[in-house]
Structures are given as C-alpha cells and as structure tokens.
C-alpha cells in the first residue's frame, strides 16, 4: 500500500472549505501525498508546499501553478486510471482519494486502452439559465426562481459561491458570505422548478440561447452501470444570465514564469478557500486595488508582504491600501517588479521605480521572497457573450474589454460585466434575475431583499462600476534592466514572450489575429484567458503611427472605424488603445471537453439504427451473412457448411435459374399514392408514361433529377383509378418520398395527389425460378397462377393458404418467372416461413443480395447507385425505351443540352474478360488496347492514359459458366465486338465489349 505523506506543510491550521476529518491520499509522479476533501489537486499541492509543476513546452523552463481556476496555463497533469485522461489543469481537478497524476510538460499523452466509462447526454429546457454562482449568479438565480420559473443554475466548480469562497469573511446581503451561499442554495434546492448543477461548465453558447454544458459526474457517480462519468447537457433557455466573473491578468515582466509567481487572486483563494499558504515572504506586485485583499489575507495568515504598486499614488478606494499600511506593510508605489531571482522557485524579486511612461526610473533592488503575487488588472470573462457575437468595448478606466451591446434574451452581470463591487454584483444579478424571469413570463415574487437599489441611470451605474474597480495602471510590459524581452512571458503555456510579439509586429503583422498566428499566443489550453489582453496591450505600445491605420477592422471589441486624426507630421494624434486593435475571436468550447463526452452513447449499435426485416431472425438462424445497404442489414448470402461466398452464390444462382429460390425484398421503399391527379403526377415524375397504366397492372419506371440524371427506379402498381403503389430502391426510399412530397407541395399543389410511406407496412418475399409457380400455387390456392391467368407485370389480391391476405405481383428482377408476395409486415416472418415450407419439396433456396446482383446483371438490369453515379441518364443505361419523347417530365429539358447530345457519353455494355475465370474488380478502368504506350503497369505512367470507361459490376455467372461484367463505356454500343484493356492493380487484361444483356436476351424465361 502506498504510504501517503501527511505533510501539508503549507496548510494553515484553521480555515478553508475543507473537511479536515477526511484526509485523502493522492499520488503525483509516484510521490504519495495527502489533502482533504474539498481540495483541488492544485490546492493540495500548494498545501504540500509544491508550487513547481512540469516544465514549459518548448523552452523547457521550470513552471509553477499560476492560477486557481480554469485559466491555468502551467499545471497540467495526466490523470492515470483505467483510461488516462490526457491533459487537465490541476486547478480544475477535484481531489479524490487515490487520485494518481503525472505532471506534464505542456503536451498530453493519449491512452490507447479503451475507455470503458459511460458518457451520456441530457436535454433540458429552462425559462432562465444562470451561468455562474458567484454573488451575481446566486442573486440572479434566487430572484429568477422566486416567481416559479424553471431555473437552471450552472457552476463549473464543485461548490457554489464563486469568488465568495475566496472572500469568506465579507458580508453579503447582511450575512456572512458562506451563510449567504448556504441560504441561497437551500432556497434554490427547495424550489420545485430549479435545478442546480455544480461541476457543470457551460462551454458553448449558440443561437437561440442554446447552451452546451459538461457535467463531471465521476465524483458523484456510484460504480453502477448506466451512471455516466460525464454528462453533456443541451440547454434551451428562454433567458440567459451570464454571471461568469472575471479573470485576473498576470503582469509581463522578466522571468515572470518562475515557479512562485502567482496571480494575487489565486493566492487569496488558496489561503482563504483552502487554507493553503503558497509563500511566507511575499512580494505583491499590483496595478490596481484588488490585490490589497490578498495582502490582507496573507498578513492575517502570518505571511510578510511587501506591496509593489505600479501607481504613483492611489486616489480612490484606498481603504484596503490604508488598511495594509496600518498592518505594517511596506508599499512601494510607482514601482514594478522587473525581474525574479531563482529558476526552480522564486528566491527574490527585483523591484525598481518606474516613471510615467512606464520606463525604469532607478536601480532595481532585490527583495528576498518566496512568492510573487501579481495582479495586472481584470478581464471580464466574455467568452460566452462573445460566442454569440455579443459586442465588447474597451473600457479604459476598468482596463478591460467589457460587454457593450447585449445579446437578445441575455443579461451579463457581475464581474463578467466589469462590475467588481460585491454589492453591485448582487444588485445587478438580482435585477437581471428578475428581468429574465419577467421576460420568461414568471415575474419574481415581490420581496427583493438583496438590495435591489432604486433605478439608476446608466451613467450613475457606470460611475459606480468604476469606483468599485479603483484605478488601474496597466503595465503591458515592464522593462527589464537589460532591455531584454525574451523571458517576459505573455502566454506561458505556448511559451510566447513579449519578444515574440515584437518580432511579429516587426514582420509587418498588424492584426491581433496575425500576431496570434505568428506567435501562437492564445492557441493553448487557456485560449488566451491568461495572455490575450496583455498581448493586445503590448500591441498598443508596438503599433503606432501609420501602423495603426493598417489594423484590419472587424475584430470583437474593436472600436467602430473612425477617421484617424493625423497630426502635422502625418502621424495619428492618438496612440492606439486596445479598442483600436480588438480581441481575437472567442470560440467554443470555453474549457476543453473530452471527445468521448461529445460522442456520448451514440456508439456501437447505438451509433446508427440497424434496420432489419421481420424475417431477420430466420436469416440469422440460417447462417446468413449480412450486407449494409443504407441503414438496412440485408442478407448477403447464406453459406452452408464449408462453403465460401463463391460457392454459396453459385448454389443460390443455380437454384433461382433452375429450380426455385426466395429472397427477402422487404427493404424496398413503398409509397401509397392516391388522388384524381395521381396518374398525371406519376407521369411527370417518371420518364415513361403512366397515364394509361391499367388497374391491376404494374409498370417499371425511372425517375430523373431536374438535370436529367437517373435518380431512382422501381415498379409502380395501379391499385385503382386513383390509387397507386410505388416501390423504390432500398437506399432510395426516403429520398424518393421527399422528392415526391417536394414536387407535390411546392410545385404542383393544384394536383390532387396524396402520398403516404408504407415501406414498413409491407413485407415482401420474392419467389424466383422456373418452379416458383408451383410454390405460389401451394401458398395461394385461390389464385389462378397460370400463365394466361396471371400475366407478367400483373398483381392480384388474394388470401394465402394460411388465411393471410396478400398482394401477389408478377415482377422479375432476374429474368426468371418470379412473384413477389406482399403482406402486412407483422405477418412477414410467418409468410417467409410458409414460403420456405411450401418450397421445400422443390428445393427452395434462400438467396441474398449477392445472388440477386448476379442474376440481374446477367440480364443487365442496372442498380441505381452502382451502374449510376449521378452522371448517368436513362439513355446512358441503354434505356431509351423508358424515356418518353412526347410527354413532359422532370429532367427532360436537360437531355437536349450539348453534353447529352454529343458523342462520347459513357453507356452501359457488358464486358467479357477473355480469361473466363477472371473476375474483374468492380471499378477497374477500361482503356483502348493501344493506349498504354510503353507503360507496363509498373509505377505510374509518365503521361495520363486516356480511359474510355470502367466496370460497374462484375461477377462469375453460373448460367454462363464464366465471369462477366457490366461497364459504362464511352459510346459503348458502337464498340460492341471491340476489345479493350481492363486496368486494375497494375495489371491489364483483354476484355470484349458486348451488348449488355447476356442471358436470355429474348426474355423467354420470364413466363416460366
């Protein structure tokens, strides 16, 4: 058993959202450690004094945990298990007993063992979806729910509360933060129409408020089958409230990637939420007020803190700073951290004064420390808003891109909207919750207790926002004493530095999109959450003068194109702002999602329906091998003991040509057509005439696309003056019905014709062969089966010997005497079995699609999709007889275009290999015998060799005692008697062109 070290040297004695009674063991790179229930992997590492994670991807620099959330760019691990999870940020992994991880160097490793976990999907409809459960989201959800609306609250974390969890001591709506969370949680859980989904990240936002979210259920799932490890939620929401918070930005300075440089808010979170102290001697480098909270909590936890504040003086909201001063902190104003001492971990920070332009204004001094907490300002989390093309605008005072114009039926609140004061977050959230509920038709119940302030004008609100944020002095890149920029990391995950950005602009790149692609900034797992805005900030410093004019427009957050004011020197008057540049495009997913979670359960047999006929069980029992035809599983052939496919097919063919055989033809598409204009309708659909088809008879027809290409074929029966029964190919059933519906509804609504698919109402058995009449006579005693009494292409309604009513047709797809018995599908198995029994004395043999193909090919009956490929007309198939010259039908006009009248079209013929045993591969190409030149088939020819056609079908014919093929050949009919070369697999063989029909050309066998 692994011995887990219970050091947790960085763990504070008190505090934190931890269950200290539940110490749990985990392993990292083989070292066993412990943490508590409530930890993340990252917090447990911090508590164990391990900030150092894997190396960086390209430069192989030591790296440490930078953040405490989904934006983490360094702390990637592989999670080992029965299927390893390739690559996850340690900051998002809930600690569980036995967790076993391996640190990664910025690149994942895929596991080739099968993942046997389950992943499912769920559809949910909400009146109001609230995303994020910080103060803004909680207030929104609570208000939205109060009027009975269906509310779904999504929180990616395993706990509700958002940033409140890192600020447990503040007062929220008159209570302690944690009590507030608990109260709202209880209220939401008690509301019957509310669903609270923790561990569920909304990662995509699509049109019409369609959200996609991933729930991680592994921590709650029992080992029970059917309980998914992760669940994909498809959410359709009337209204959406985005309460997704903000990300703190790092500051770009020399060696800012050394382990021990950490976001200030993350430091606070580790201390307050997890009682994990990342460092004891802390230099806190900030550009704004928010980090003073970190200073406060660090001091409280016993750390010493030196504040380095970029601002010369702090005008507004100084209470925190004052408090810090009073707490005895040293504060260096107008200063910056300009470098780090240490490589495996921070041992000191170089601090220097900076002037108004951000340039070094004095020598750097080294402050010994073991942690550098940084806050470069905040970036509202606008991904989901922007995924919906919600607009952004650069706000100079907030120093961030903030949602401007909203998205229809969406609200953006809280820090995600640039509102950084907790009370204001509550107000904004509550208002949005109420607004959303009202818009969804479930107005909130009257009492609003979360300080729903009096309506304020937009300006007042804006002013409040700014006050709360305090002032920010953005530092896009802090100069290093030696002037270098090549360890100023902008995107640590992608190992890109300020020097890379500089190279990009130097190369002529003006668009942030180009800079992204020249450097690869923002293309890593955090997708720019860490480095995006800093890059843009840097660009404002690098692009000036004429450069700014060439910045392409159209990026999110980009200011509307304005005339660039020029100074006397021809330079633009104003420096570009981040708004001049705009952001790169935000795209789903907001956080990475395992492929298999997107695949869901739709795998294996659930991937796609496997449709079977009612006699399927019989086919299985009789050893059938199956072929996929569209979604259908059709018997392909029925091998008997010791038979290979050829032997089985030969036997089945013999039976059909010499005795009797039967085939399951249930899969054919079937459509009932009724109406006074049904004949006219069919007459326009089919290339051949249908007006005069007598009742009681059927006719083969071909339909073409508007451009004259064969599209489907089949036999249509006339049941009554105004009723027809159309059959289609198996693969064509759905598209033919759609085709007919389309013409009937959209082009010819005046025609009285109505269509109903009855493909599955009927089961069909084809009984084929010289002895088929005997079998039918036994099966259908009431039927006059004589040649005279039941003619070819006729059908009869009859009652079978079993008492089952059937429609029997005399149709052939083999040239033999043949019948098709149609019965309601639920009698399909019975009738199939009856046919087998009735035929037994005649040696009836079941056959599959392969034999069907051989038989029809001997008769040159084309298969749509095999002899045709969307470029073939009925004429090309040698079926001029099926194309009316007189009537109008779909596609007709196309036949008179040049390409259809000129010679050189590929037309159907048969080709016979001179070697009778050789079966050409289907698809083999045909060339003129002299076309080869000196090409031997070795390698590739030096110049193209002209092809005259290709093989569409190729079989061994039992009846002919030789191999044969059908082919589409340029001007085929004129080549009958010629010899061509078939080319396949580097071989060439002579074939003779013949007329298509090879067997029973006179059709003598049709009537038995």
């Amino acid at each position: 058993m692994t011995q887990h070290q219970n050091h947790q040297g960085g763990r504070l004695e008190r505090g934190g959202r931890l269950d200290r009674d539940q110490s749990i063991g985990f392993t990292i790179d083989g070292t066993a450690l412990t943490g508590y229930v409530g930890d993340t992997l990252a917090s447990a590492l911090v508590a164990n004094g391990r900030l150092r994670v894997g190396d960086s991807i390209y430069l192989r620099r030591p790296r440490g945990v930078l953040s405490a959330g989904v934006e983490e760019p360094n702390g990637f691990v592989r999670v080992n298990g029965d299927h390893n999870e390739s690559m996850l940020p340690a900051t998002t992994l809930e600690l569980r007993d036995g967790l076993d991880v391996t640190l990664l160097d910025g690149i994942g490793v895929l596991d080739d063992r099968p993942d046997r976990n389950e992943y499912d999907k769920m559809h949910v409809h909400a009146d109001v979806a609230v995303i994020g459960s910080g103060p803004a989201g909680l207030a929104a959800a609570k208000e939205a729910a109060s009027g009975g609306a269906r509310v779904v609250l999504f929180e990616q974390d395993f706990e509700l509360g958002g940033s409140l969890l890192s600020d447990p001591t503040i007062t929220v709506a008159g209570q302690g933060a944690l009590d507030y969370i608990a109260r709202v949680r209880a209220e939401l859980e008690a509301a019957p129409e509310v669903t609270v989904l923790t561990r569920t990240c909304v990662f995509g936002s699509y049109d019409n408020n369609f959200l996609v979210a991933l729930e991680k259920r592994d921590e709650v799932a029992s080992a029970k089958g059917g309980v998914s490890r992760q669940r994909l939620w498809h959410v359709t929401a009337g209204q959406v409230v985005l309460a997704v918070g903000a990300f703190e930005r790092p500051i770009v300075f020399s060696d800012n990637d050394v382990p021990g440089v950490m976001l200030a808010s993350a430091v606070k979170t580790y201390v307050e939420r997890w009682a994990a102290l990342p460092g004891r001697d802390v230099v806190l480098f900030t550009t704004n007020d928010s980090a003073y909270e970190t200073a406060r909590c660090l001091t409280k936890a016993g750390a010493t803190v030196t504040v380095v504040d970029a601002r010369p003086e702090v005008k507004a909201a100084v209470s925190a700073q004052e408090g810090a001063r009073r707490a005895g902190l040293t504060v260096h104003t107008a200063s910056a951290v300009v470098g780090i001492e240490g490589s495996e971990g921070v041992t000191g920070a170089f601090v220097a004064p900076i002037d108004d332009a951000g340039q070094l204004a004095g020598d750097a001094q080294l402050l010994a420390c073991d942690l550098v907490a940084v806050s470069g300002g905040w970036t509202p989390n606008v991904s989901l808003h922007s995924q919906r093309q919600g607009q952004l605008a650069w706000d100079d005072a907030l120093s961030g891109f903030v949602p401007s114009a909203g998205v229809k039926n969406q609200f953006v609140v809280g820090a995600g909207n640039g509102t950084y004061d907790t009370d204001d977050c509550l107000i904004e959230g509550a208002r949005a919750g109420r607004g959303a509920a009202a818009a969804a038709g479930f107005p909130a119940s009257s009492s609003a207790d979360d300080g729903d302030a009096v309506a304020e004008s937009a300006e007042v609100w804006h002013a409040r926002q700014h006050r709360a944020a305090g002032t920010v002095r953005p530092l896009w890149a802090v100069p290093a004493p030696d002037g270098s920029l090549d360890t100023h990391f902008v995107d640590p995950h992608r190992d890109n530095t300020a020097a890379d950005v500089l190279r990009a602009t130097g190369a002529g790149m003006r668009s942030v999109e180009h800079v992204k692609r020249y450097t690869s900034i923002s293309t890593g797992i955090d997708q720019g959450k860490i480095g995006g805005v800093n890059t843009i900030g840097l660009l404002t410093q690098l692009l000036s003068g004429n450069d700014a004019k060439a910045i392409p427009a159209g990026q999110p957050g980009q200011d509307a194109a304005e005339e660039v004011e020029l100074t006397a020197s021809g330079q633009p008057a104003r420096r570009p702002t981040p708004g001049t540049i705009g952001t790169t495009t935000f795209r789903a997913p907001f956080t990475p999602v395992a492929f298999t979670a997107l695949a869901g359960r739709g795998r294996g047999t659930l991937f796609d329906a496997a449709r079977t006929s009612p006699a399927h069980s019989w086919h299985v029992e009789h050893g059938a091998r199956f072929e996929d035809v569209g979604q259908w599983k059709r018997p392909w052939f029925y091998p008997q003991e010791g038979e290979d496919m050829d032997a089985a097919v030969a036997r089945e063919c013999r039976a059909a040509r010499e005795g009797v055989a039967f085939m399951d033809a249930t899969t054919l598409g079937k459509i009932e057509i009724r109406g006074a204009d049904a004949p006219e309708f069919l007459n326009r659909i089919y290339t051949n005439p249908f007006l005069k088809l007598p009742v009681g008879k059927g006719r083969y027809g071909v339909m073409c696309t508007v451009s004259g290409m064969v599209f489907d074929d089949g036999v249509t029966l006339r049941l009554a003056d105004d009723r027809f029964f159309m059959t289609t190919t198996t693969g064509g059933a759905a598209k033919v019905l759609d085709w007919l519906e389309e013409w009937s509804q959209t082009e010819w609504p005046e025609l009285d014709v109505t269509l109903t698919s009855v493909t599955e109402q009927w089961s069909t058995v084809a009984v084929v062969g010289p002895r088929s009449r005997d079998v039918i006579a036994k099966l259908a005693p009431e039927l006059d089966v004589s040649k005279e009494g039941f003619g070819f292409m006729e059908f009869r309604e009859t009652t079978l010997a079993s008492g089952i009513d059937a429609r029997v047709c005399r149709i052939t797809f083999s040239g033999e005497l043949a019948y098709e018995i149609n019965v309601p599908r639920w009698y399909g198995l019975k009738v199939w079995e009856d046919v087998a029994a009735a035929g037994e004395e005649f040696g009836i043999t079941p056959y599959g699609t392969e034999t069907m193909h051989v038989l029809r090919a001997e008769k040159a009956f084309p298969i749509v999709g095999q002899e045709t490929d969307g470029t073939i007309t009925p004429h090309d198939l040698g079926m001029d007889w099926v194309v009316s010259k007189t009537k109008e039908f779909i596609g007709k006009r196309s036949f008179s275009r040049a390409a259809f009248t000129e010679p050189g079209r590929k037309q159907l013929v048969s080709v016979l290999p001179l070697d009778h045993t050789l079966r050409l591969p289907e698809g083999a190409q045909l060339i003129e015998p002299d076309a080869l030149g000196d090409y031997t088939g070795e390698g590739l020819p030096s110049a193209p060799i002209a092809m005259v056609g290709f093989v569409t079908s190729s079989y061994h014919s039992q009846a002919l005692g030789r191999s044969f093929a059908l082919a589409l050949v340029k001007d085929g009919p004129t080549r009958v008697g010629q010899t061509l070369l078939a080319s396949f697999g580097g071989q060439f063989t002579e074939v003779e062109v013949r007329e298509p029909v090879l067997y029973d050309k006179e059709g003598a066998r049709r009537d038995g």
Partner: protein
Amino acid sequence: MSQRELPQHPDFLWTNPDPKKSYDVVIVGGGGHGLATAYNLAKHHGITNVAVLDKGWLAGGNMARNTTIIRSNYLWDESAAIYETSLKLWETMEEDLGYDVFFSQRGVLNLAHTMQDERDSVRRVEANRLNGVDAEWVTPQQVKQLCPIININDDIRYPVMGGTYQPRAGIAKHDWVAWAYARRANEMGVDLIQNCEVTGFVMDGGRVVGVETNRGRINAGKVALAAAGYTSVLADMAGFRVPIQSHPLQALVSELHEIVHPTVVMSNHVHVYVSQAHKGELVMGAGVDAYNGYGQRGSFHVIEHQMAAAVELFPIFARAHLLRTWGGVVDVTLDASPVMGLTPVDQMYVNCGWGTGGFKAVPAAGLAYAHTIANDEPHPLNRAYGLDRFVTGALIDEHGAAAVAH
C-alpha cells in the same frame, strides 16, 4: 524536426501600404488563391502592378480555417489534372517560396465502409493511376498498418472495409503557406492591402475599370475575384451570378498531444477526417451545415455527431479534448468542382467554387488563374471549369466519386 521545435517565421513578411490610385490587376480576396494568383502574375507574366485587397486580415478567410488536407486522388481527368499539378507544385513550394510551410507527405487514407464505397474507391484508384496519380486500394489490415490507431474491428456499426491510400498526399501549415505567397508577392512588388473591402465595381460599358472600396476608389485594368464564399456577394455587385451557395463548414482541434497519428484519415461515410498537426493537435473537420450561412460558425450537433464517429474509429481519441471549434464560409457548387474563368463582364475574372477542398489547389489555381487573367483566356488546366459547363451540362461531378471532399 521534433514536435517541440518549430522553425520561426521569417523576420519580415510584408509591407502595409495605402492603396495606390490604380493597378493593372486588382485581386479581390487575400486568401490562398488570391495570394498565389498575385505571385504567379508577377513570376510568370511580369505583371507586378497588382493589388490584393482583403476586407479583413490577410488570409483570414477559409485559408485560416481549413484542415489542410492535400491530395490529388480525384476521380475525373480534369480534376486529376489540376490537383496533381498542384501536388507537384506543393512538392517544390518550400524551395520556390523560401519558406518552410511544413508540407508533410504523410499520406492520406480514404476509408470505405460499404461495398459501394469499395467499388467507388477502386474506380477512383484505377483512374488515378492511369492519370499518373499515386493511389492504391488497401485492405483493412493494410489500413491498420498505415495507421495503427484505427479500429478495424467489427464492433462498430460500419466497420472499415478497406480504403484508398495516396502516399504523396499530406498536410501543410495553412497560415505559413499564405504568408509564404504573400511575402514573395510583396517582394516582387504586389501591394497587399488589408482592411479594404470592395463595395462595388466601376464599369465602363460592359467592362470593369475599377473597384469601390471602404478606402476609396481604386482603378484597375483587370479585376480578379478570389473571394471564395463571398464571390456571390461580389458578383451581385457586378451584375452577374455564380452557381455557388455559401455554407458554414466547421473544424476543430484538440490540445497538443505526443504524436500518435502518422497519416491523414478521411471517412466520408461516417463523416470524419483527421490528422495530427506537427505541434501535436488533432485537426478535424466536421460536416457542412445544410443551410446557407456567412456567419463563420455552424451548429454544434454537427460536431457531436462527428465526434461519435471519430471515437468509434479512433478509440485512442476518447480523452483528447476539444479545444477550439470554428467555421468557415465554403463556396459549394452543384458538382463539387470549382469555377474558374472569364465572366460576363469584360476584364473581370472569377475563381471560386472550391468549396470544402480548395486549400490543396492553391498552387495550381494560382498558376492557372494568373494565366487566365494575363491572357484573357483559360489555361488548359481550367478550360473545363468555366461557367459554360453549366450550360452544356458537362459537369465534373466529384460527388459520385465516393464523395470525397476536402
């Protein structure tokens, strides 16, 4: 070169001039096709007073969005001719342009899952070989050898029944290709003008003499459209129509992984195509959305559906993570073949309709289009691709050919 090293881009790529008053040739659209055309005008025809105008950032359209599959194993002779010419040009591109574009001839497998797939595949392979295109039919076992991570077992709904393989096919780094052309064209005097949207055409009788843009009028001796999905919008301004429809087409990538996928796999039947780019991200294309759309985004269910197929075929991808999705605007013709040639407007030319597969065509299309523009007559490679084929009905229908796009 290892997965953890990438050569750097050159220190200088292109200048960003203001547009001049007038150019001999104005190319509308700075994607791969526009840029390659400019390069070829300069290189082969000595025409350097050329501007490439783009409404956004250079090569930010489909060129920035494609899954970079390069192959020439198309069915019809006309297709094989242009795509094979292209493939040959890919083979010398890095030298020609002096830029490492990561052209990697790792082979492309097109899988077959039904018997009809198999017939279509063999037909295409045999046609390819006679057209001088390397191609072979491979059995499931050979598929497995070429790409060991493919599941060829029967436990999936549509098992792999074999495939076609083109060893010389492969991938390249899309942005680098665009920039390589841009850099050379710029060096030879071509102006690359971004943020310059063409909003109308200036006509003199039946002839175009300039373009209106958001940066003012620019006179032009000739105007060549190379605007992919936006061609209809431009043609509309010029008073004619092109037989294309613009659809969203999506693609996606995973995070970086150690290399496991040695080749490129396409499976039309179950809608997957995937390669692993040099850095290690899995690059995958999704299906075309059915509706017309210029939004550069599609619907998520398309991606989910394809993921199911991907994980079926590649169980090893189960816990790779979707990192980013995006969409392009593809210009689809009815026969899945491009349109390149003259237009009803004098001195105006069109090149569009490459749909889901025009990245691979960039070098040859640039060659042929430049010829067409310079000589006011098609190059032999694009003679069959004029608008007249829609009148005669002589389509070059690549759908039937196992419907392999991209």
